[in-house]
């Protein structure tokens, strides 16, 4: 955590001095030193980087950019963005649309991938399985951008079923959420299902499955009772990587569909070169990653009682 903060700090302030940032914001050419100084003091970048020799006592460490801009992130005080808005309240406001997309996408997606993989495993060794695997490889070879562009075009423009983009809070939100969620699920179908299929196949060759078969259990029961439970562990491990993205919102989907979530917030910040927001988002992302790691460890104990939290 401290490491992340140090890295972002170095990236943002030492590689790139506040002078440069001020120049960026005020336009490239014909910038007077006075204007730079003014911008810097207006945004609180006019202090020394790490050590302030002019202040008294504790002020030597606290009156610095490092303290004001980086250490404060630990208490989730994000400060204000480079054009003066409060990042903390922005994030709180934009969190909900992001969640509205990410949560259903994650839940339904996991369900769809697992059931598709199960279907393939159930028909393993047949042409259905083979064509399913080929379909997966083809699906995962297409860039996600194509799905988005084509999906938007087909459903919204040709058939006018759903709005192309935008968002409105409240009960009508589902109309705006449905299409991104569908496309989001479709984007991951190829790679995830193929991965889960290998997990299932690995389990299905083990001894306990053979025992279950020898007992005369029907194939469906074996799959759902025995194989699914044991294959959940590797699946859960892979899911962690997705968790922070859940909250951060899918960068691409949100900006394509014009949803005012955290993902599009970040993209706006990137294209608007608002370093304060990017810094805050990097920090937030790493916090969520760590929370995700802890959650996975907890979920292991739920799936597999042999694993004990130590």
């Amino acid at each position, binding site marked *: 955590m401290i490491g992340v903060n140090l890295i972002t700090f170095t990236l*943002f302030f030492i590689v790139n001095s506040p002078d440069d940032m001020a120049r960026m914001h005020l336009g490239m050419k014909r910038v007077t030193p006075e204007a730079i100084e003014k911008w810097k003091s207006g945004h609180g970048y006019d202090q020394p980087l790490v050590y302030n020799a002019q202040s008294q006592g504790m002020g030597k460490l606290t009156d610095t950019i490092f303290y004001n801009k980086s250490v404060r992130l630990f208490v989730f005080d994000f400060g204000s963005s480079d054009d003066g808005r409060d990042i903390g309240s922005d994030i709180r406001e934009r969190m909900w649309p992001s969640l509205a997309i990410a949560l259903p996408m994650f839940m339904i997606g996991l369900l769809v991938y697992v059931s598709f993989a199960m279907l393939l495993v159930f028909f393993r060794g047949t042409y259905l399985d083979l064509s399913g695997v080929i379909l997966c490889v083809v699906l995962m*070879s297409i*860039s996600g*951008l194509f799905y988005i562009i084509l999906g938007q075009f087909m459903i919204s423009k040709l058939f006018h079923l759903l709005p192309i983009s935008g968002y409105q809070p409240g009960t009508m939100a589902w109309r705006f959420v449905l299409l991104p969620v569908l496309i989001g699920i479709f984007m991951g179908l190829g790679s995830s299902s193929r991965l889960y299929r290998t997990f299932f196949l690995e389990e299905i060759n083990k001894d306990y499955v053979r025992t279950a078969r020898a007992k005369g259990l029907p194939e469906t029961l074996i799959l759902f009772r025995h194989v699914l439970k044991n294959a959940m562990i590797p699946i859960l491990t892979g899911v962690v990587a997705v968790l922070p*993205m859940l909250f951060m919102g899918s960068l691409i989907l949100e900006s394509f569909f014009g949803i005012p979530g955290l993902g599009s917030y970040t993209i706006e910040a990137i294209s608007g070169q608002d370093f304060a927001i*990017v810094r805050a988002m990097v920090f937030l992302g790493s916090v969520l990653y760590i929370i995700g790691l802890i959650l996975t460890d907890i979920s292991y104990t739920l799936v597999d009682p042999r694993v004990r939290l130590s």
Partner: protein
Amino acid sequence: MIKPVFLWTDSLLMFLVVTIVAFIFYVRSKEHLHEPWREIFKSRIALASMLILLIYILVALLDSMHFRQALPETEGQLETQYSGDVLSVLDVLMTPLREQVEITYSAPFAAHAHSRETRTGEDGSQTRIYPRLKFGGVHLTDPQTERSGDVLQRLFIVVVKTVLGIIGLYALLAILLARRWQTDLKQAAIRLLSRKQSVSWKTLLLMMALVMFVIIFIADIGRHYHILGTDKVGQDVLYQAIKSIRTGLIIGTLTTLIMLPFAVTLGLMAGYYRGWVDDVIQYLYTTLNSIPGVLLIAAAILMLQVYMANHPDMFETMAERADMRLLFLCVILGVTTWTGLCRLLRGESLKLKELEYVQAADAFGVSGLRILTRHLLPNLTHLILIAVVLDFSGLVLAEAVLSYVGVGVDPTMLSWGNMINRARLEMAREPMVWWSLLAAFIFMFTLVLSANLFSDAVRDAFDPRMRHR
């Protein structure tokens, strides 16, 4: 007079190719390393995708030999001036495609522009017509009736040429193989097509036919028509898509080339030395891992932009500037992707360390460095190879997404990501402009699909767990 230009990515790509060739020779000299490769050659899908990958690499290589042409000399000039345009060998080969620039959009195989234009007639009356293109289908007098016939006729010629070419290739292959198998020509020609071969020559020939068809098609018909239309400023879309191959391949290969040394040394060291070395390395990669990749890349690219804006004198040409950005993108992508491989290698070397042969080496007093390089590394190469091939397709796809976010390659550089990005706006036009998207889709899909299929074959051949199934 020409002046060769060595861009950073060019040199690195050349270095990579030399390494691969050296690796091939090394494998050829060691019998025990042959087995997995034989398996790959046996698989027909792997063979076909390998051929396509080779074609892509060849195009990228041709596109990586850059030079600047000298400007015509003027009076009293002391030294030769070179033009600011950096060309590549591929540009020269595709001169007709490159130079046949229309005014604006035109559809594939069109003879007329895509949008109407107001023309003033001789008597001063104004009509709105679709103007004829400057290059696309100029040899036709009445495009409406003649065009399809003309295209079919040319297509027929292309097919004939391909068939002739493939027969020639077949004969050549038969002669070569006859010498190798020490049989006569007729027998070799029959045996070549039979199914039980170590290399499926039939698949190879079929794929070669396909590739030849595409190349002859582009070379023949591309001279007279814009096969995939033109874009907003009238440039041939096919040319753009072919030029984008280099960008995509560089992102896919150089990134792994850059991150490989770090991932391998750090992963091995963490696994072998344990103790504080392990702690430091583990801390390093958990930290890096916890930062969302896109954000890290975005931050780094923003920094680079500021830096380049402050030091404009460092770059002689636009191409060098764009190239620097591409290289930097590779580096930063490498920073975000090395952690996975590093963790994998750490775990694996932890396991290997406990094996008897490493313990024996330790007992004999072999130094740590030597154990790492002689005993651990060779037993991990298959993992490295699999990881490299698997990463490739993901990186090519990532480029497109990053370019969309605005932190990918330089906007002036031709890349599939930039093409898709522009195509989004074009799709909203009325009538719709769909061919840029289609072109980017076809080229990207072929590359990523063959990379995926090839990596599957490589994994199946090298993964010891798979081999016994």
